[in-house]
């Protein structure tokens, strides 16, 4: 996670309990819209639980964080929930600095997030 220039890859896997969205590479200001669109799409489809897997996310800035917050709002409006999984130490530090850990459950694995009480 250090100064990565790998473009953002957003992979969406639908599951019976909702969807797992895996992020890879760099969620920069330029690519934040890609993440926002993916989360908006799931909210519009009525997805009730979205697990955002950050395990392979190498970089995120405030625009990427904003896309996650916007996704959380969209999902909640439709009765859904957004959960975060596996942030690296720098991403976790950023979530703590911004106090976004107060908005989201942060879990160690996708399985743990899916089975956790909302």
């Amino acid at each position, binding site marked *: *996670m*250090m*100064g990565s220039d790998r473009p953002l890859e957003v992979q969406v896997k639908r599951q019976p309990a909702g969807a797992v969205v895996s992020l890879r590479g760099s969620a920069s*200001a330029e690519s934040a819209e890609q993440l926002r669109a993916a989360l908006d799409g799931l909210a519009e489809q009525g997805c009730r639980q979205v697990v955002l897997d950050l395990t392979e996310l190498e*970089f995120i800035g*405030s*625009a990427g964080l904003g896309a996650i917050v916007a996704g959380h709002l969209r999902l909640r409006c439709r009765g859904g929930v957004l959960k975060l999984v596996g942030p690296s130490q720098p991403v976790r530090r*950023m979530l703590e600095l911004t106090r976004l850990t107060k908005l989201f459950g942060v879990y160690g694995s996708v399985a743990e997030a899916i089975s956790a009480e909302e």
Partner: protein
Amino acid sequence: MSPSDDGQCESLTEIIIPSDLSAAKQPEQRILQEVRRCGYGPQEAFAIKLALEEAITNAIRHGNGNDPSKRIIIGFSVSPQRAVIRVADEGEGFCLEDVPDPTADENLERPTGRGILLMRAYMNRVCYNRKGNEVTMVKLKP
């Protein structure tokens, strides 16, 4: 950090880009190349990339109002002791005191407004000119 370490008097290499996020890649890559060449660690490289991206994004969106005819001037100097980065826009500037605290309970769900907080958290020094359209940031090498 002594007053002379604020980067204000530093001689900087300048790159001028249009108000376009895709144009920010080239100066970002060049600065990070210098950062690595001077032996900064991955955590410092991450901090500098983050602060640079936040400053440029603010300059494009808030400073220049996404006006492609307006320019962003990025100045930098990287030595084995410290990295100094300056980002200036052609906007009217802003007052730092008017920026809401993004960590306040009532602002947590706002999708925007975290850039300055992150710049201040990850750099050793962040200061604005009087008008508020130019920010200078310093990262010390541990």
